[in-house]
Protein backbone atom coordinates (compact mmCIF):
# COMPACT_ATOMS: atom_id res chain seq x y z
CA UNK A 1 0.00 0.00 0.00
CA UNK A 2 2.61 2.53 1.08
CA UNK A 3 4.67 1.61 -1.99
CA UNK A 4 1.84 2.32 -4.43
CA UNK A 5 0.46 5.39 -2.76
CA UNK A 6 2.98 7.97 -4.10
CA UNK A 7 2.61 6.64 -7.65
CA UNK A 8 -1.18 6.79 -7.37
CA UNK A 9 -1.09 10.31 -5.95
CA UNK A 10 1.23 11.49 -8.74
CA UNK A 11 -1.08 9.99 -11.38
CA UNK A 12 -4.15 11.67 -9.92
CA UNK A 13 -2.26 14.96 -9.76
CA UNK A 14 -1.17 14.69 -13.42
CA UNK A 15 -4.72 13.86 -14.52
CA UNK A 16 -6.06 16.84 -12.58
CA UNK A 17 -3.60 19.20 -14.29
CA UNK A 18 -4.45 17.70 -17.67
CA UNK A 19 -8.20 18.13 -17.08
CA UNK A 20 -7.81 21.71 -15.86
CA UNK A 21 -5.65 22.69 -18.86
CA UNK A 22 -8.39 21.34 -21.15
CA UNK A 23 -11.11 23.08 -19.13
CA UNK A 24 -9.33 26.45 -18.93
CA UNK A 25 -8.09 26.72 -22.52
CA UNK A 26 -11.17 25.29 -24.15
CA UNK A 27 -9.08 23.59 -26.85
CA UNK A 28 -10.98 21.58 -29.46
CA UNK A 29 -11.14 17.87 -28.67
CA UNK A 30 -9.10 16.89 -31.73
CA UNK A 31 -6.19 19.02 -30.45
CA UNK A 32 -6.22 17.96 -26.82
CA UNK A 33 -8.95 15.71 -25.43
CA UNK A 34 -9.33 15.67 -21.65
CA UNK A 35 -8.75 12.58 -19.51
CA UNK A 36 -12.47 12.07 -18.93
CA UNK A 37 -13.15 12.02 -22.67
CA UNK A 38 -10.19 9.69 -23.26
CA UNK A 39 -11.52 7.36 -20.56
CA UNK A 40 -14.97 7.37 -22.16
CA UNK A 41 -13.51 6.67 -25.59
CA UNK A 42 -11.38 3.90 -24.12
CA UNK A 43 -14.43 2.26 -22.58
CA UNK A 44 -16.51 2.54 -25.75
CA UNK A 45 -13.68 1.06 -27.83
CA UNK A 46 -12.47 -1.44 -25.25
CA UNK A 47 -12.90 -4.49 -27.48
CA UNK A 48 -11.20 -2.81 -30.42
CA UNK A 49 -8.31 -1.72 -28.21
CA UNK A 50 -8.08 -5.15 -26.57
CA UNK A 51 -7.83 -6.84 -29.95
CA UNK A 52 -4.98 -4.59 -31.08
CA UNK A 53 -3.29 -4.81 -27.69
CA UNK A 54 -3.24 -8.60 -27.96
CA UNK A 55 -1.46 -8.37 -31.31
CA UNK A 56 1.17 -5.95 -30.02
CA UNK A 57 1.65 -7.97 -26.83
CA UNK A 58 2.23 -11.13 -28.86
CA UNK A 59 4.81 -9.38 -31.06
CA UNK A 60 6.55 -8.03 -27.98
CA UNK A 61 6.65 -11.37 -26.16
CA UNK A 62 7.99 -13.29 -29.16
CA UNK A 63 10.48 -10.48 -29.76
CA UNK A 64 11.62 -10.58 -26.14
CA UNK A 65 12.11 -14.33 -26.21
CA UNK A 66 14.03 -14.30 -29.51
CA UNK A 67 16.09 -11.26 -28.53
CA UNK A 68 16.97 -12.77 -25.16
CA UNK A 69 18.08 -16.09 -26.68
CA UNK A 70 20.14 -14.33 -29.37
CA UNK A 71 21.64 -11.85 -26.93
CA UNK A 72 22.61 -14.51 -24.39
CA UNK A 73 24.12 -16.73 -27.10
CA UNK A 74 26.13 -13.83 -28.55
CA UNK A 75 27.42 -12.75 -25.16
CA UNK A 76 28.50 -16.32 -24.32
CA UNK A 77 30.26 -16.66 -27.66
CA UNK A 78 32.02 -13.30 -27.26
CA UNK A 79 33.05 -14.10 -23.70
CA UNK A 80 34.53 -17.48 -24.53
CA UNK A 81 36.35 -16.64 -27.74
CA UNK A 82 38.96 -13.97 -28.19
CA UNK A 83 38.67 -14.22 -31.97
CA UNK A 84 34.92 -13.63 -31.77
CA UNK A 85 35.57 -10.56 -29.64
CA UNK A 86 38.06 -9.09 -32.10
CA UNK A 87 35.89 -9.82 -35.14
CA UNK A 88 32.37 -9.23 -33.91
CA UNK A 89 32.62 -6.52 -31.27
CA UNK A 90 33.40 -3.57 -33.60
CA UNK A 91 30.64 -4.71 -35.93
CA UNK A 92 28.19 -4.92 -33.06
CA UNK A 93 28.97 -1.37 -32.01
CA UNK A 94 28.70 -0.17 -35.62
CA UNK A 95 25.21 -1.66 -36.01
CA UNK A 96 24.16 0.33 -32.96
CA UNK A 97 25.22 3.53 -34.73
CA UNK A 98 22.62 2.82 -37.44
CA UNK A 99 19.12 4.16 -36.77
CA UNK A 100 16.92 1.10 -36.35
CA UNK A 101 13.92 3.19 -37.48
CA UNK A 102 15.44 3.41 -40.94
CA UNK A 103 15.39 -0.37 -41.16
CA UNK A 104 11.69 -0.69 -40.45
CA UNK A 105 10.51 -0.18 -44.07
CA UNK A 106 13.02 -2.70 -45.42
CA UNK A 107 12.05 -5.23 -42.75
CA UNK A 108 8.43 -4.85 -43.80
CA UNK A 109 9.50 -5.40 -47.38
CA UNK A 110 11.44 -8.54 -46.46
CA UNK A 111 9.19 -10.08 -43.85
CA UNK A 112 5.79 -8.81 -44.93
CA UNK A 113 2.98 -6.90 -43.32
CA UNK A 114 2.34 -9.42 -40.58
CA UNK A 115 3.75 -10.38 -37.22
CA UNK A 116 7.34 -11.16 -38.11
CA UNK A 117 8.49 -7.74 -39.31
CA UNK A 118 7.41 -6.34 -35.92
CA UNK A 119 9.07 -9.17 -34.01
CA UNK A 120 12.24 -8.44 -35.97
CA UNK A 121 12.06 -4.76 -35.01
CA UNK A 122 11.63 -5.63 -31.36
CA UNK A 123 14.55 -8.08 -31.55
CA UNK A 124 16.77 -5.49 -33.23
CA UNK A 125 16.06 -2.98 -30.50
CA UNK A 126 16.62 -5.27 -27.51
CA UNK A 127 19.39 -7.50 -28.84
CA UNK A 128 22.18 -5.04 -28.12
CA UNK A 129 21.21 -4.06 -24.56
CA UNK A 130 20.91 -7.73 -23.58
CA UNK A 131 24.16 -8.74 -25.28
CA UNK A 132 26.07 -5.77 -23.88
CA UNK A 133 24.80 -6.18 -20.32
CA UNK A 134 25.44 -9.94 -20.13
CA UNK A 135 28.79 -9.74 -21.93
CA UNK A 136 29.91 -6.99 -19.58
CA UNK A 137 28.97 -9.18 -16.62
CA UNK A 138 30.83 -12.16 -18.07
CA UNK A 139 33.98 -10.11 -18.50
CA UNK A 140 33.90 -8.69 -14.98
CA UNK A 141 34.14 -11.89 -12.99
CA UNK A 142 36.00 -11.09 -9.76
CA UNK A 143 39.66 -11.98 -10.40
CA UNK A 144 39.90 -13.91 -7.13
CA UNK A 145 37.32 -16.48 -8.32
CA UNK A 146 39.30 -17.00 -11.52
CA UNK A 147 42.54 -17.44 -9.55
CA UNK A 148 40.88 -19.97 -7.28
CA UNK A 149 39.47 -21.89 -10.26
CA UNK A 150 42.91 -21.91 -11.86
CA UNK A 151 44.52 -23.49 -8.82
CA UNK A 152 41.73 -26.10 -9.02
CA UNK A 153 42.75 -26.98 -12.60
CA UNK A 154 39.40 -25.96 -14.05
CA UNK A 155 38.90 -25.92 -17.82
CA UNK A 156 37.80 -22.61 -19.39
CA UNK A 157 34.44 -24.22 -20.14
CA UNK A 158 33.90 -25.26 -16.52
CA UNK A 159 34.89 -21.78 -15.33
CA UNK A 160 32.36 -20.26 -17.74
CA UNK A 161 29.44 -22.42 -16.57
CA UNK A 162 30.18 -22.69 -12.88
CA UNK A 163 31.59 -19.23 -12.17
CA UNK A 164 31.40 -16.63 -14.92
CA UNK A 165 27.76 -17.22 -15.95
CA UNK A 166 26.30 -17.30 -12.41
CA UNK A 167 28.40 -14.25 -11.49
CA UNK A 168 27.01 -12.38 -14.52
CA UNK A 169 23.32 -13.18 -13.93
CA UNK A 170 22.58 -9.88 -12.13
CA UNK A 171 23.84 -7.96 -15.18
CA UNK A 172 21.77 -10.19 -17.47
CA UNK A 173 18.76 -9.38 -15.30
CA UNK A 174 19.32 -5.63 -15.79
CA UNK A 175 19.63 -6.19 -19.52
CA UNK A 176 16.35 -8.11 -19.62
CA UNK A 177 14.55 -5.47 -17.55
CA UNK A 178 15.71 -2.78 -19.93
CA UNK A 179 14.65 -4.94 -22.88
CA UNK A 180 11.12 -5.30 -21.47
CA UNK A 181 10.72 -1.52 -21.75
CA UNK A 182 12.35 -1.23 -25.19
CA UNK A 183 10.63 -4.14 -26.90
CA UNK A 184 7.17 -2.46 -27.18
CA UNK A 185 8.82 0.58 -28.78
CA UNK A 186 10.32 -1.69 -31.44
CA UNK A 187 7.03 -3.41 -32.15
CA UNK A 188 5.16 -0.10 -32.43
CA UNK A 189 7.74 1.33 -34.84
CA UNK A 190 7.18 -1.74 -36.98
CA UNK A 191 3.43 -1.23 -36.85
CA UNK A 192 3.74 2.41 -37.84
CA UNK A 193 5.63 1.56 -40.97
CA UNK A 194 3.22 -1.05 -42.21
CA UNK A 195 0.58 -3.08 -40.45
CA UNK A 196 -3.12 -3.76 -40.29
CA UNK A 197 -3.18 -4.67 -36.61
CA UNK A 198 -1.60 -3.60 -33.34
CA UNK A 199 -1.64 -0.54 -31.10
CA UNK A 200 0.84 1.32 -33.33
CA UNK A 201 -1.47 0.81 -36.29
CA UNK A 202 -4.49 1.91 -34.25
CA UNK A 203 -2.70 5.08 -33.10
CA UNK A 204 -1.76 5.98 -36.66
CA UNK A 205 -5.28 5.27 -37.89
CA UNK A 206 -6.93 7.33 -35.14
CA UNK A 207 -4.52 10.18 -35.71
CA UNK A 208 -5.24 10.22 -39.44
CA UNK A 209 -8.95 10.55 -38.77
CA UNK A 210 -8.48 13.28 -36.14
CA UNK A 211 -9.77 10.86 -33.47
CA UNK A 212 -7.22 12.20 -31.03
CA UNK A 213 -9.13 10.78 -28.05
CA UNK A 214 -8.78 7.25 -29.47
CA UNK A 215 -5.11 7.93 -30.22
CA UNK A 216 -4.58 8.89 -26.58
CA UNK A 217 -6.53 5.87 -25.37
CA UNK A 218 -4.34 3.53 -27.48
CA UNK A 219 -1.15 5.29 -26.42
CA UNK A 220 -1.99 5.10 -22.72
CA UNK A 221 -2.85 1.42 -23.16
CA UNK A 222 0.59 0.90 -24.69
CA UNK A 223 2.12 2.71 -21.72
CA UNK A 224 0.30 0.48 -19.26
CA UNK A 225 1.33 -2.60 -21.25
CA UNK A 226 4.99 -1.56 -21.07
CA UNK A 227 4.84 -0.87 -17.36
CA UNK A 228 3.15 -4.22 -16.67
CA UNK A 229 5.74 -5.98 -18.81
CA UNK A 230 8.53 -4.25 -16.92
CA UNK A 231 7.03 -5.21 -13.56
CA UNK A 232 6.56 -8.81 -14.69
CA UNK A 233 10.15 -8.95 -15.88
CA UNK A 234 11.34 -7.45 -12.59
CA UNK A 235 9.54 -10.18 -10.73
CA UNK A 236 10.74 -12.93 -13.04
CA UNK A 237 14.38 -11.86 -12.74
CA UNK A 238 14.41 -11.20 -9.02
CA UNK A 239 16.30 -14.37 -8.15
CA UNK A 240 18.65 -13.84 -11.05
CA UNK A 241 19.47 -10.34 -9.83
CA UNK A 242 20.25 -11.72 -6.39
CA UNK A 243 17.35 -9.89 -4.73
CA UNK A 244 15.29 -11.45 -2.03
Amino acid at each position, binding site marked *: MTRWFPALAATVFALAIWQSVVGLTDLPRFILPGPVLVAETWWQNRWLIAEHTAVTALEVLIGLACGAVLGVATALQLASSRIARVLVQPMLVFTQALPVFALAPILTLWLGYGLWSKVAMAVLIIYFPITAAFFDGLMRT*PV*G*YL*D*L*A*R*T*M*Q*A*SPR*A*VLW*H*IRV*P*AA*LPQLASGLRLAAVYAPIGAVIGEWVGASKGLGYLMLLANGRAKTDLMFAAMLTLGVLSVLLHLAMRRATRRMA*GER
Partner: protein
Amino acid sequence: MTPAPAITVTGSASIDGAPLFAPLTLSLKAARWTCLLGGSGVGKSTVLRLIAGLETGAEFHGTITASDGAPVMERVAYMSQDDLLLPWATVAQNMALGARLRGEQVDRARLDDLLRRVRLSDHAAKRPAELSGGQRQRVALARTLMEDKPVVLLDEPFSALDARTRADMQELAAELLAGRTVLLVTHDPAEAARLGHSIQVMTGGGLTPVAPPTARMPRAVDDTETLECQGALMRMLREGGR
Protein backbone atom coordinates in the same frame (compact mmCIF):
# COMPACT_ATOMS: atom_id res chain seq x y z
CA MET B 1 47.40 -37.23 -0.98
CA THR B 2 50.99 -37.74 -2.14
CA PRO B 3 53.78 -37.06 0.42
CA ALA B 4 54.39 -33.34 0.86
CA PRO B 5 57.48 -32.22 -1.07
CA ALA B 6 59.88 -29.42 -0.24
CA ILE B 7 59.68 -26.47 -2.65
CA THR B 8 62.47 -24.18 -3.74
CA VAL B 9 61.94 -20.84 -5.48
CA THR B 10 65.08 -19.26 -6.96
CA GLY B 11 65.09 -16.15 -9.10
CA SER B 12 64.21 -12.50 -9.45
CA ALA B 13 61.16 -10.61 -10.67
CA SER B 14 60.68 -7.28 -12.40
CA ILE B 15 57.72 -5.20 -13.51
CA ASP B 16 58.26 -3.37 -16.82
CA GLY B 17 62.01 -3.66 -16.32
CA ALA B 18 61.98 -2.23 -12.79
CA PRO B 19 63.07 -4.87 -10.26
CA LEU B 20 60.34 -6.05 -7.88
CA PHE B 21 62.64 -8.30 -5.90
CA ALA B 22 66.36 -9.01 -6.31
CA PRO B 23 67.60 -12.58 -6.88
CA LEU B 24 66.52 -14.65 -3.88
CA THR B 25 66.12 -18.25 -2.82
CA LEU B 26 63.13 -19.30 -0.77
CA SER B 27 63.02 -22.87 0.52
CA LEU B 28 59.84 -24.38 1.90
CA LYS B 29 60.62 -27.41 4.05
CA ALA B 30 58.54 -30.51 3.41
CA ALA B 31 55.47 -30.82 5.66
CA ARG B 32 56.40 -27.62 7.52
CA TRP B 33 55.01 -24.09 7.78
CA THR B 34 57.15 -21.35 6.25
CA CYS B 35 56.06 -17.81 7.07
CA LEU B 36 57.00 -15.10 4.59
CA LEU B 37 56.70 -11.82 6.46
CA GLY B 38 56.89 -8.41 4.83
CA GLY B 39 55.23 -5.04 4.30
CA SER B 40 53.02 -4.13 1.37
CA GLY B 41 54.59 -4.03 -2.08
CA VAL B 42 57.76 -6.05 -1.41
CA GLY B 43 56.55 -8.84 -3.68
CA LYS B 44 55.74 -11.50 -1.10
CA SER B 45 52.34 -12.22 -2.67
CA THR B 46 54.07 -12.38 -6.05
CA VAL B 47 56.27 -15.21 -4.78
CA LEU B 48 53.18 -17.11 -3.61
CA ARG B 49 51.33 -16.52 -6.87
CA LEU B 50 54.32 -17.69 -8.87
CA ILE B 51 54.26 -21.01 -7.01
CA ALA B 52 50.50 -21.28 -7.62
CA GLY B 53 50.97 -20.54 -11.32
CA LEU B 54 48.79 -17.42 -11.18
CA GLU B 55 49.07 -14.12 -13.07
CA THR B 56 51.43 -11.75 -11.27
CA GLY B 57 51.92 -8.90 -13.70
CA ALA B 58 55.64 -9.35 -13.07
CA GLU B 59 58.29 -11.03 -15.15
CA PHE B 60 59.99 -13.86 -13.26
CA HIS B 61 63.44 -15.13 -14.11
CA GLY B 62 64.18 -18.30 -12.23
CA THR B 63 62.92 -21.72 -11.29
CA ILE B 64 60.35 -23.26 -8.98
CA THR B 65 61.10 -26.87 -8.17
CA ALA B 66 59.83 -29.62 -5.90
CA SER B 67 62.16 -31.96 -4.03
CA ASP B 68 60.56 -34.99 -5.72
CA GLY B 69 61.03 -33.50 -9.19
CA ALA B 70 57.31 -33.61 -10.01
CA PRO B 71 55.48 -30.48 -11.23
CA VAL B 72 54.44 -28.05 -8.48
CA MET B 73 51.48 -26.13 -9.90
CA GLU B 74 48.89 -28.91 -9.94
CA ARG B 75 49.73 -29.93 -6.38
CA VAL B 76 48.86 -26.66 -4.64
CA ALA B 77 45.73 -25.50 -2.86
CA TYR B 78 45.23 -21.76 -2.47
CA MET B 79 43.54 -19.61 0.12
CA SER B 80 43.46 -15.82 0.16
CA GLN B 81 42.44 -12.96 2.45
CA ASP B 82 39.13 -12.71 0.61
CA ASP B 83 37.27 -15.95 1.36
CA LEU B 84 36.26 -16.17 -2.35
CA LEU B 85 33.06 -18.02 -1.49
CA LEU B 86 30.58 -17.97 -4.35
CA PRO B 87 27.58 -16.03 -2.97
CA TRP B 88 25.02 -18.05 -4.96
CA ALA B 89 26.28 -21.43 -3.74
CA THR B 90 25.72 -23.09 -0.37
CA VAL B 91 28.50 -23.87 2.08
CA ALA B 92 28.61 -27.50 0.89
CA GLN B 93 28.60 -26.48 -2.79
CA ASN B 94 31.40 -24.01 -2.15
CA MET B 95 33.45 -26.70 -0.47
CA ALA B 96 32.88 -29.03 -3.42
CA LEU B 97 33.79 -26.36 -6.00
CA GLY B 98 37.06 -28.00 -7.07
CA ALA B 99 35.40 -31.35 -7.81
CA ARG B 100 32.56 -29.65 -9.68
CA LEU B 101 34.96 -27.59 -11.78
CA ARG B 102 36.92 -30.70 -12.73
CA GLY B 103 33.75 -32.69 -13.38
CA GLU B 104 34.58 -35.18 -10.63
CA GLN B 105 32.32 -36.98 -8.20
CA VAL B 106 32.06 -35.07 -4.90
CA ASP B 107 33.39 -37.08 -1.96
CA ARG B 108 30.39 -36.67 0.35
CA ALA B 109 31.92 -38.48 3.32
CA ARG B 110 35.04 -36.34 3.19
CA LEU B 111 32.93 -33.20 2.90
CA ASP B 112 30.87 -34.10 5.96
CA ASP B 113 34.01 -34.95 7.91
CA LEU B 114 35.62 -31.60 7.06
CA LEU B 115 32.42 -29.71 7.88
CA ARG B 116 32.54 -31.31 11.31
CA ARG B 117 36.21 -30.48 11.77
CA VAL B 118 35.64 -26.79 11.01
CA ARG B 119 32.55 -26.96 13.26
CA LEU B 120 30.06 -26.00 10.54
CA SER B 121 27.99 -29.19 10.27
CA ASP B 122 24.77 -27.29 10.96
CA HIS B 123 25.51 -24.73 8.27
CA ALA B 124 26.02 -26.93 5.18
CA ALA B 125 22.90 -25.66 3.39
CA LYS B 126 23.42 -21.97 4.23
CA ARG B 127 24.69 -19.35 1.82
CA PRO B 128 27.83 -17.35 2.63
CA ALA B 129 25.83 -14.16 3.32
CA GLU B 130 24.24 -15.89 6.33
CA LEU B 131 27.62 -16.57 7.95
CA SER B 132 29.96 -14.44 10.06
CA GLY B 133 33.41 -13.46 8.81
CA GLY B 134 35.07 -16.16 10.90
CA GLN B 135 32.62 -18.83 9.72
CA ARG B 136 33.17 -17.84 6.10
CA GLN B 137 36.92 -18.15 6.51
CA ARG B 138 36.40 -21.59 8.07
CA VAL B 139 34.43 -22.61 4.97
CA ALA B 140 37.32 -21.33 2.84
CA LEU B 141 39.73 -23.42 4.92
CA ALA B 142 37.50 -26.47 4.53
CA ARG B 143 37.34 -25.88 0.76
CA THR B 144 41.15 -25.68 0.69
CA LEU B 145 41.31 -29.01 2.56
CA MET B 146 38.73 -30.62 0.24
CA GLU B 147 41.35 -30.20 -2.47
CA ASP B 148 43.63 -32.50 -0.46
CA LYS B 149 46.81 -31.12 -2.00
CA PRO B 150 50.27 -31.66 -0.41
CA VAL B 151 51.20 -27.98 -0.82
CA VAL B 152 49.04 -25.22 0.64
CA LEU B 153 49.55 -21.54 -0.17
CA LEU B 154 47.98 -19.06 2.25
CA ASP B 155 47.91 -15.41 1.16
CA GLU B 156 47.14 -13.41 4.32
CA PRO B 157 44.11 -15.61 4.98
CA PHE B 158 43.41 -14.32 8.49
CA SER B 159 44.17 -10.62 8.19
CA ALA B 160 40.56 -9.48 7.73
CA LEU B 161 39.43 -11.19 10.93
CA ASP B 162 39.13 -9.68 14.41
CA ALA B 163 41.93 -10.51 16.86
CA ARG B 164 40.13 -13.31 18.68
CA THR B 165 38.74 -15.02 15.59
CA ARG B 166 42.16 -14.73 13.98
CA ALA B 167 43.85 -16.52 16.88
CA ASP B 168 41.20 -19.28 16.71
CA MET B 169 41.64 -19.65 12.96
CA GLN B 170 45.43 -19.82 13.27
CA GLU B 171 45.11 -22.74 15.67
CA LEU B 172 42.50 -24.52 13.56
CA ALA B 173 44.59 -24.11 10.40
CA ALA B 174 47.74 -25.33 12.19
CA GLU B 175 45.86 -28.43 13.32
CA LEU B 176 44.17 -29.23 10.01
CA LEU B 177 47.10 -28.48 7.71
CA ALA B 178 49.59 -30.60 9.66
CA GLY B 179 51.66 -32.80 7.35
CA ARG B 180 51.44 -30.44 4.38
CA THR B 181 54.01 -28.04 3.02
CA VAL B 182 52.57 -24.64 3.86
CA LEU B 183 53.61 -21.17 2.72
CA LEU B 184 51.95 -18.44 4.76
CA VAL B 185 52.37 -14.93 3.40
CA THR B 186 51.61 -12.35 6.08
CA HIS B 187 52.29 -8.79 7.18
CA ASP B 188 51.59 -9.64 10.83
CA PRO B 189 54.71 -10.33 12.97
CA ALA B 190 52.55 -11.97 15.66
CA GLU B 191 51.16 -14.45 13.15
CA ALA B 192 54.62 -15.34 11.81
CA ALA B 193 55.94 -15.80 15.34
CA ARG B 194 53.04 -18.08 16.30
CA LEU B 195 52.95 -20.27 13.22
CA GLY B 196 56.31 -20.47 11.46
CA HIS B 197 58.47 -23.58 11.58
CA SER B 198 60.72 -21.25 9.70
CA ILE B 199 60.35 -17.50 9.26
CA GLN B 200 61.67 -15.37 6.42
CA VAL B 201 61.45 -11.58 6.51
CA MET B 202 61.15 -10.06 3.06
CA THR B 203 62.24 -6.45 2.52
CA GLY B 204 63.50 -4.46 -0.44
CA GLY B 205 66.91 -5.91 0.31
CA GLY B 206 65.83 -9.52 0.00
CA LEU B 207 65.10 -12.37 2.40
CA THR B 208 66.39 -12.58 5.97
CA PRO B 209 65.83 -15.83 7.88
CA VAL B 210 64.83 -15.46 11.52
CA ALA B 211 65.09 -18.24 14.09
CA PRO B 212 61.56 -19.22 15.20
CA PRO B 213 60.64 -19.61 18.88
CA THR B 214 61.42 -23.06 20.27
CA ALA B 215 57.86 -23.93 21.39
CA ARG B 216 55.77 -26.20 19.17
CA MET B 217 53.47 -24.34 16.78
CA PRO B 218 50.78 -23.09 17.11
CA ARG B 219 52.50 -21.23 19.93
CA ALA B 220 50.53 -19.71 22.78
CA VAL B 221 49.64 -16.06 22.21
CA ASP B 222 51.28 -15.12 25.53
CA ASP B 223 54.37 -17.33 25.25
CA THR B 224 57.29 -15.08 26.27
CA GLU B 225 59.70 -16.30 23.62
CA THR B 226 57.01 -15.94 20.93
CA LEU B 227 56.34 -12.37 22.05
CA GLU B 228 60.06 -11.60 21.94
CA CYS B 229 60.28 -13.05 18.45
CA GLN B 230 57.27 -10.94 17.43
CA GLY B 231 59.06 -7.82 18.73
CA ALA B 232 62.25 -8.68 16.90
CA LEU B 233 60.32 -9.27 13.66
CA MET B 234 58.53 -5.95 14.06
CA ARG B 235 61.86 -4.17 14.50
CA MET B 236 63.23 -5.81 11.35
CA LEU B 237 60.17 -4.80 9.35
CA ARG B 238 60.55 -1.19 10.42
CA GLU B 239 64.29 -1.09 9.78
CA GLY B 240 63.73 -2.75 6.40
CA GLY B 241 62.53 0.65 5.24
CA ARG B 242 59.21 -0.45 3.74
